């Protein structure tokens, strides 16, 4: 398995996209801190990028990689290796590559400029978001048959989680604003990994604003130690569940 993971990583590094991605993140990370007047503001801009580009790149890159290595997978399946080992190695290889790119690109400037809790949570959310969308890519690539459809599904997942979901939430908030929907909304927003990561970040940056009436509700829910554990638990679920689904499908799939 170790050997397989090594092979996957080597293969990923060969196609240079991940290197360009690393360079892009690094350029962004360093320039943001150079341009913004304060490091807190820099961390905030970075955070916006993390919520937008990291999921997109992770899901599409992982997706394309899996489709491109179709023949490689077929070859491996013909060897005396368990299917789950193959799928595990590909997943872990992708996770390592994508998160390493993030750590080098964003992690280093963040640790240089803001080595505090805000910086730490920027990195942590980045790693979680990257992993979650890799896992989702595994799922979408096994569900959709051909490459075009697979990428389409990935883009839809990304668009839904980062834009449409929030739009729907906002719509519901206004439709049902006469009802006590606060707790329900907290529940709904905790179902979306991007929202979950964003709210954890809000608790760090906008803490004074959150002390107001509704802020207090979700500060009570997310802001304490248990809330933190719940957040991390839910993010872990978002990594594990899509992957397990894809693993089950892969084990049964007729290649």
């Amino acid at each position, binding site marked *: 398995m170790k050997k397989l993971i090594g092979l996957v990583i080597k293969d990923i590094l060969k196609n240079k996209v991940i290197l360009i991605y690393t360079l892009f993140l690094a350029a962004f990370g360093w320039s943001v801190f150079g341009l913004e007047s304060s490091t807190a503001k820099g961390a905030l801009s970075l955070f916006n990028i993390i919520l937008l580009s990291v999921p997109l790149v992770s899901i599409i890159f992982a997706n394309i990689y899996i489709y491109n290595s179709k023949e490689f997978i077929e070859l491996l399946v013909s060897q005396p290796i368990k299917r789950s080992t193959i799928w595990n190695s590909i997943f872990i290889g992708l996770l390592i590559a994508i998160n390493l790119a993030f750590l080098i690109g964003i992690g280093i400037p963040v640790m240089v400029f803001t080595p505090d809790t805000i910086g730490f949570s920027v990195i942590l959310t980045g790693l979680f978001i990257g992993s979650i969308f890799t896992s989702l890519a595994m799922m979408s690539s096994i569900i959709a048959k051909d490459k075009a459809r697979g990428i389409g599904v990935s883009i839809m997942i990304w668009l839904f989680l980062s*834009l449409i979901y929030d739009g729907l939430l906002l719509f519901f908030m*206004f439709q049902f604003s006469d009802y006590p929907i606060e707790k329900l909304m907290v529940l709904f927003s905790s179902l979306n990994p991007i929202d979950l990561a964003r709210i954890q970040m809000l608790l760090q940056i906008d803490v*004074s604003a959150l*002390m107001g009436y*509704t802020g207090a509700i979700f500060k009570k829910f997310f802001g304490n130690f248990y809330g933190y554990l719940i957040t991390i638990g839910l993010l872990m679920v978002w990594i594990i569940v899509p992957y397990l689904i894809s693993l089950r499908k892969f084990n049964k799939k007729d290649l």
Partner: protein
Amino acid sequence: MNRFFLVFIFFISIFYDLKSRSLQVGSQHPFKSIKSALESANNGDTLLVYAGTYKESPIIIDKKVTIIGIERPVLDGEHQYEVVSIKADSVFFTGFQVQNSGVSSINDIGGIKVYDRRYVTIQNNILLNNFFAVYLQYSRHCLVKDNIITSNAQDEQNSGNGIHCWKSDSLQIIANRIEGHRDGIYFEFVKESVVWRNIARNNIRYGLHFMFSHKDSYFSNIFENNGAGIAVMYTKHVFMANNSFINNTGDACYGLLLKDISDSHIIGNRFIGNTIAMFLEGANRNKISKNVIQENGWGMKVQANCEDNHIYENNFIHNTFDVATNGTLVMSYFKENYWDKYEGYDLDRDGLGDIPYHPLSVYSYVIEQNPISMLLFRSFMVTLMDRTERLIPSVTPEAFVDLTPVVKPYKL
């Protein structure tokens, strides 16, 4: 003749001075109790009270005397009485620890209460666990200085204010430290007074609260972490400078709530880490300048019923929302402020941005109408909404604009 008269006056005054005595109170001194000393005292005498605990409340000071506590004697109200009642002019009261006054919902029991007097000085005392700590009513020209006032109030109903002044004028409240009361400093109908260098923190309601108190000045005070921040109401000609309003957080909690405040100056203050730094409601003709408004949830909420306020040369830094309002009508003016969210340029290098800045974010507008939507703040969709609105304002009032924002923060 004239010379003789002067000499005569001189001797008379010496004689007069000699007439005033010092009365010593303490377990090893002529007077065993403060009350007995007060009984035999005349106007102008000095009482020296030595260390010990005196449970003889209520102590009523009805002569013009100076009372000095030596090695901080304790006056205890045994949770029943008013500890010290001052009912004479020109009393000088210093050096005591006044504690455990009674609590009542009918009378305003004070640790030290001044009744309708002038030129009273209350200086360098420690006041512990009193209902109202220092209470001045109908008083003029009084000085309350260097007192440390603490209590452990639990709720608003069963607690009093740290320094409570009612229907007074020309007071000086200087360098007191007030913690754990209902309101730190409370003024009602107090005119032409000065509040200088006080620290009010961790009070369960307001750090500073005044109503109908015209022409008062507040300098260099620190108001920190009070339950509902600072609320000032129904007053004209207030002057507030160099105060710090720090970490007043919570729902309906304001760094500085200005309700029906007019013709006032709020200059050079620091607002840091409050939920709402400044809230203007029915506030007219005020000048708000040279303030640092930093790391607050809302920098300034200017309600639509405010008129002709001039807000200029302030630094708005790292606030979640710089400003917010509740309507479409804007009759206040923003000029030459520094906004850290400003993204314009300054081609002619005169220090002023070349394009106007609309400080009102559309999402603060949305949140005003539907507070739960705070949950979606900083999401991609909301950022998109905000950007669009900044470029083409359609929802937010057009008049809410700083035409000449400065590009560099003021050194304040």
